[in-house]
């Protein structure tokens, strides 16, 4: 029984490494007193992003699995690693904007104004993050002579889950931090 669970544990292991290292890095970034106070909220936010990304990806994976024949282990692992890397970049973008809002609000700047500016710049960064990976994947899908379609579709599904979490979860989290700062 343990043997059949081995691949599952391997996925858990890599997720744990990503999550633990991300939280440690975020802790090292939140050295000043002001952001340290909000560290719990920031790390919780990163955990939520990872969790939502993985959940959405797993759902999409099982949907696609019904229609696609996944022949190689690589086809399962590569999109998952891709998802985690995108998740980490997303976490850093969102957390940096969090930090900016916290620091600027403490400098007595108008919170509403700060939030709208940061929201705008963060959205641009997130959109850019998706575009730089979406364009090569689409080009490969169109120009790749139909090879690796399965892998490319799974990679695109990673992008879909990240974009959903970016544009649905991020505004909610931003609203929360805005409320907590008021």
């Amino acid at each position, binding site marked *: 029984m343990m*043997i059949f669970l081995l691949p599952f544990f391997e996925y858990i292991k890599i997720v744990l490494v990503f999550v633990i290292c991300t939280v440690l890095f975020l802790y090292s970034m939140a050295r000043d007193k002001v952001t340290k106070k909000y560290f719990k909220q920031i790390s919780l936010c990163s955990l939520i992003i990872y969790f939502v990304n993985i959940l959405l990806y797993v759902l999409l994976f099982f949907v696609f699995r019904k229609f696609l024949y996944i022949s190689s*282990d690589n086809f399962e692992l590569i999109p998952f690693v891709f998802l985690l890397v995108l998740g980490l970049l997303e976490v850093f973008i969102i957390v940096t904007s969090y930090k900016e809002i916290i620091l600027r609000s403490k400098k007595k700047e108008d919170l509403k104004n700060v939030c709208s500016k940061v929201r705008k710049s963060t959205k*641009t960064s997130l959109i850019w993050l998706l575009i730089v990976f979406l364009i090569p994947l689409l080009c490969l899908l169109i120009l790749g002579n139909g090879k690796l379609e399965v892998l490319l579709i799974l990679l695109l599904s990673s992008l879909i889950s990240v974009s959903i979490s970016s544009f649905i979860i991020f505004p909610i989290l931003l609203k929360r931090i805005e409320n907590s700062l008021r």
Partner: protein
Amino acid sequence: MRGKWLFKVILISLIFSISTLIILPEMPLISNSSMLKLDSKIGGYKIKLGKKEGSKEVDLSAFKMGWGIGENKKLTFKLKEDIDDNDKDLEKNANIVKNRLSVAGISDFSVYVEDDQLVVVFPEYENEGRIGNLVAGSGKVIFRKLKEPENWKVEDFAKFYMDVNQWDDTDIRESDIRSFEYSVGQTGNSQINILFTNEGREKFYDLVAENVNLPIGIYLSDFNYPFLMPVMSETLLTRRDLDPFVGSSYPRQTVEDANLQFKMPLDTELSYGEKSSLEPVLGYDFLKSFLIAVTVSSLLIGIFMIIKFKSHGFISIMSMFYSVVLFLALSKILGIPLGLQMVFGLLMLVGAIYFSSYILLSDIKNNISQGKPFDLAFNHTFGGDKERSFIPALALFIIFIVSYVVMSGGTTKMLIFTMSLTTLSLIIFNLFFFPTLMWVLGDKEK
């Protein structure tokens, strides 16, 4: 240009030139004109490290071809006994074999069931005999004693080793053993520590007591030759509470493979079927289309970067090109196969560099639009806030290094190793290539 920056530019040109020479395949340079006579070559080097015989040689003649791009070997296996539901049993075995091959570090393999057979496909450079053992080894262990101990002579060792009929089965089986552990003895010879269960250890020392100065055959996976054939010494009986050490000439890998077979036994026994070669699944055609796709997408994003950031956008593309060349050179030196992992690594590198460039260049542009001179904007971006570009790259690099240590399985490790190299190239881009070229070529008015 100040000395420090000049030195950095020269270093970049050196790194780029060496990386290009590493990537290049062997290209003949022949000229036989009245002006110049030349018979030489460039690229495709074979560099010998060390002067002694048997020293390591770094072969840079070609990229190692991995799954999908290079030729593959295919081995098929059948169930030893035909049963009603062959497919179900083969599927169970396929999962066990996948785990065995993963933990054994075989890279780029695939295992599937087809036409009542278990099929294993792997790259040409993997050892076929080793994979055959890992797949077909049932994992059963049996200890045997000599049928006619009075005939034993040390000089006839080979006769007893080769002939399974010289041996009688004992009741010590795989259930009596916990594992085989490889170790190096005080004299530097390799040895194997057989770890028994309490009951198994008792049985083993009883067997030793009956066979002092005689060999014992330890057979693994129903092979016709013993995995170990140690001669039992009386001194072994002095500490019956300890697990015995047995001298062996096997390398660590063989012992670990034996352990894998024994720890992950097959559900039903398999026998060797056929061996054949397979054409590359994706082939060179795919590489060509991949390169076209990456170039087209890079151009599309690059055009946008140039329109938005003008000359700075062009510098970021130039730096990206240097980083990609460096990544390919490192991959070739470290033997990363040209296959799915490398394709994915390249995609990640190009995407991450464009993303990082966008963040950095936007910051510089913002600062310049606020009226700051270029050097202040440059210092603010590259010297101060690194949280959106450099720190994620560093975090990813550390994460992949940690993952490489904690994860198991050849394919997984190879993917994570490739990703570590990708992030290393990204760090070099963020820390060295891009800032240096930006400073040197970015703006004249500082």
